[in-house]
């Protein structure tokens, strides 16, 4: 780890001050707030008429309409909601890859998005993997109050989701930050995460060593999650094969995101500062 994670949170918070979360155009759900919701509420914006039903607030009866039609008609207004961001973090051991900026980048990126969400007056919830998905302590507070995220969970993202999925708010924005390096079809997991979401963004955060194969020579690879070892002689052909495999994995995620309406982008942890424009391109962030 090049910098302490707490410092990464501070850095992310500072970087996030320049951005605001780019809210989707579709109506959202949420607690009472400043954004128009998708349901009827108490804002000044007219939404619809409907027949009076017992229990309706008598103040909402359109008396003019009653005078014209002799029917009790209730005037509905759009509700005003506060948008919500569910930030789903992969804190499994693979995200805590030693000698890389991957865990620091995860902290920085989470802080950045949380700050940007705050700038967009969004509420937020942080979920992290462990024995199932758990809320990050003090996640409603600014990042500096989170403390370091506990990294190195033994469960992969998919396993944790299978054990205890996050309780995501409906019609909220959802952002997944993970290296997406787990076997199996990503579509089922992605479908569940996309269900009821106003938008879903998938950020693949890779270390540079994940994106590029090791240098040629004899290498003993150790899986940080399972501890499994693999001794291999890396040459040019092996490196090429590795790159092909990574490309196929990313393609499978791309296809899955396409099917679920999610946006996918890949960031390199060591180049995070220069890669934030990619988040603007997928309309996740916008200048504050």
């Amino acid at each position, binding site marked *: 780890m090049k910098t302490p994670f707490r410092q990464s949170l501070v850095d992310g918070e500072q970087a996030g001050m320049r951005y605001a979360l780019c809210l989707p155009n579709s109506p959202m759900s949420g607690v009472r707030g400043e954004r128009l919701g998708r349901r009827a509420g108490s804002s000044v914006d007219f939404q619809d008429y409907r027949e009076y039903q017992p229990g309706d607030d008598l103040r909402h009866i359109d008396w003019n309409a009653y005078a014209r039609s002799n029917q009790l008609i209730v005037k509905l207004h759009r509700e005003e909601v506060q948008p919500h961001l569910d930030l789903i973090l992969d804190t499994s051991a*693979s*995200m805590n*890859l*030693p*000698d890389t900026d*991957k865990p620091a980048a995860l902290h920085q990126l989470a802080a950045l998005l949380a700050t940007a969400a705050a700038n967009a007056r969004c509420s937020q919830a942080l979920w992290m993997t462990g024995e199932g998905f758990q809320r990050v302590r003090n996640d409603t507070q600014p990042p500096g109050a989170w403390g370091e995220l506990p990294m190195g969970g033994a469960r992969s993202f998919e396993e944790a989701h299978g054990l205890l999925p996050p309780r995501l708010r409906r019609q909220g924005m959802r952002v997944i930050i993970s*290296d997406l*390096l*787990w*076997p199996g079809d990503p579509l089922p997991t992605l479908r569940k995460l996309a269900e009821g979401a106003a938008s879903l963004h998938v950020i693949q955060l*890779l*270390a540079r*060593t*994940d994106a590029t194969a*090791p240098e*040629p*020579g*004899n*290498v*003993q*690879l*150790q*899986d*940080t*999650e*399972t501890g*499994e070892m*693999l*001794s*291999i*002689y890396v*040459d*040019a*052909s*092996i*490196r*090429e*094969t*590795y790159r092909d*495999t*990574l490309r196929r*994995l990313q393609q499978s995620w791309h296809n899955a995101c396409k099917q679920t309406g999610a946006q996918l982008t890949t960031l390199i942890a060591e180049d995070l500062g220069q890669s934030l424009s990619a988040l603007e391109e997928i309309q996740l962030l916008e200048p504050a």
Partner: protein
Amino acid sequence: MPTITYPLAWLAAISLPLLAAIYFLRHRFRKQPVSSLLLWQMQKESREGGRRIETPKFPPIFFIELFILALLVFAALGPRWQLPHTTRPLIVVLDDSLSMSAGPAGQQPRDEALKLLNEILAKRDFASYQLIAAGAGPRLLGDTVPHPDQLKDQISLWTCTAHAADLDAALALARNLRKGDADVLVLTDHAPAETDLPPGRIRWEAVGKPRVNFAFVNAARTPHGAGDRCLFEVANLSASAATNTLRITAGQQVVYEKRLLLETNRTHRVTLPVPATMGTLRAELGGDALAGDNHAALVRPRRRQVRVQMSVTDTNLARLITETLASTGLRAPTNQPPELVIHQSDAPPAGREAWGLRLAPMPEKAERFTGPFVMDTTHPLTHGLTLPGIVWGANATATNAPGHLPIITAGNVPLVTTRTDRRGREQVTLHFAPTQSTVQDTPQWPALFWNLLHWRARAQPGLPENNLRLGAEVPYRPRGKTATLTFPDKTEQQIDTPSGEIRLPVKQPGVYTVVSGAQTNRLRESFAVNFLAGAESNLSAAVTDKWGAWGTEEEVRYEYASVLPYLILLALAGALAHLWMIARQRGRT
């Protein structure tokens, strides 16, 4: 096989393990944690068979570099390769005598010689290979072969049982085989007779060791009166004084037994009078380095007598001859059918087996010859005769008849002549005037008649002698057209005997039996062959050393050519391949 000019260059071979060490250190497995082995699935293998031991894998350029280094090290050694067209044939002369099997198994000179031969064959190639066993005479062990592996069958024929090793004859044969252009290797257990070896490319390798050995050097059994006299002579043929036990038996009966203490090269003689009826005597010595010369056997000698018919009209002369014949002890009591007729007629005697001794007619006044007498000393009739000082009366005008072989003459006057007639019978003519001679008063007279009867007796069917030395010819006159020879190991061999005398094939010591003829004419005889070769049993002179060489170092070098250019070319080709692979790898990465 290549030869090496600069052996010190082997030090350069250290670079090979150094290179391997460098690569090992550089290419040993470096640990690298990865987020997941998901992306390495194509390289993962099933672990159901247990954990596999991983060894560092070296890149191909390592092997190319190793190859180039090895070539350079080899080139630095200055290797020279044998050229096929300059390679010489090899002729190996193997001492086939018994002394090559002296000592315990595995340490015998034969074993050492084989070891040395294999070392030489492993070091150097030859155009062809030929083995000659040097026994009493040289013997080719097989055809010339192009490859040393093909010598195995021939080597199995090298038995080391001969009573002598005529290495000079074997070397002469080797020279004749290849006209002197071959490399000759002599494998024996003793030094050459002369320091200077015969001319030619001869390498003499002696692989013997002095050991303690007692041996029979003489054994004989001869009729003596009514009984036989036996002689055994034992020698200590070691380099130091030693003891041994001599034991002589006849069947189950121990005839003689004595513990011997002999100085080096001293002998011990045992003379035993035994009854003529006593069967085979066997003598045995205790164990020593050479077992083959520790046994001797003596069978009963055949008492040969000749049936003589007297047809001499001169009573005085007849009486003289009759008494002389009786004194030889070789005249048979009967004279029918006669084997020797002593007569005075001009015609040869009748009888299929009858030899004749014709007493030539003498004039009244015979000449008295006092010498010098000319004598064919190689003839059986003259064995032991010395005529100086005697007077021999004969016809001075007599001449040698055509077809007669003069045996004893006085100048040009024949005294004793022989002629072989058409039937193979010998007709002897004696010119002798007893009244003018003193020869009948000397020992030469009975000796002459003993020679005559002995000569006739040896021409009888059967064996002339019953106790022989190994290596001596065993003549045999069979009865009939076939003979059956039974060897000491009880195996039998049928031998065709078209006519006359044959030589029995005797190759090993022991007691043999030979049978010929049928039914009443059947002749069965036993004879003993003994290993009585003192020179061969003498292990005091055995030595391990070598003499001679296959040419000077310069000559040997001409048989080889330098392979340095080829090695350099190969190394350059390897370097090019190395460069190409490095360039290709850079392009891919």
